[in-house]
């Protein structure tokens, strides 16, 4: 994974993006799990439940694994480092 970062492709989300990515992944997988269970029970075919779960997993991977720009909107604002010359002037 490090070679991607060295190519200039970012892999990190900011803190707010991480929270939203986790929430979205869980929401998608749970939703498709419930849909799959109801559908499979209705059709009396458990493989439909498994495939729907797999589809939800794929969707969650597509939406939350890559650090899309929407997860990078609130970067941390670091204070600017104080330079040595400023400290010398105060003395």
């Amino acid at each position: 994974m490090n070679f991607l970062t060295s190519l200039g492709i970012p892999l990190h989300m900011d803190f707010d993006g991480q929270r939203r990515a986790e929430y979205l992944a869980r929401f998608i997988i749970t939703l498709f799990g419930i849909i799959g269970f109801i559908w499979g029970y209705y059709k009396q075919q458990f493989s439909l439940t498994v495939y729907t779960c797999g589809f939800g997993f794929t969707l969650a991977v597509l939406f939350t694994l890559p650090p899309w720009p929407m997860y990078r909107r609130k970067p941390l604002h670091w204070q600017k480092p104080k330079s040595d010359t400023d400290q010398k002037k105060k003395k």
Partner: protein
Amino acid sequence: MHSFLSRANAVAAYALSVLACLTFLCFLSTLFIDYRTEASINTIRTIVKSISNYNSDRKANDLGHITVDLRADLSPLFNWNVKQLFVYLYAEYETSSNSLNQVILWDKIIRRGENANLNFKNMNLKYYFWDDGNGLKGNKNITLTLSWNIIPNAGCLSHVNAVGQHSFSFPDEYTIAKQ
């Protein structure tokens, strides 16, 4: 969630947990279903021979030759938690040497989607009906029972007996095999 790999790990782990949960719910949804159903069994030909059993000690043992009519509609047993049925027909009888003898005479695997409406007429059995001595000749109470294992997608392997048995008797004389 701070790196690509930890996100992949979290998503995969959660998806697997959900799948395991749904599988358990599927097991719960079929836990209290009554899998008994009616079967009608009838014997057409019942003869008994005295033949050397070369599979064991070469002594002359009783070998029953029977053909049966078997009718049972097992298609209502299938649901989303039944992968296949293992259906078997067995005989139970008492002899002087054993209070309970059980011999499997016939079996069949029915996968889901295959024809589960059993209707056999004058069917030969799949396995030999050997007694371990001379207990078949003149035996007045031999009971045939149809029974099945339910092989589920998730859950326990259950043994179910059909409703309806058939009892018959073997003749008092051996049928002499033509040489």
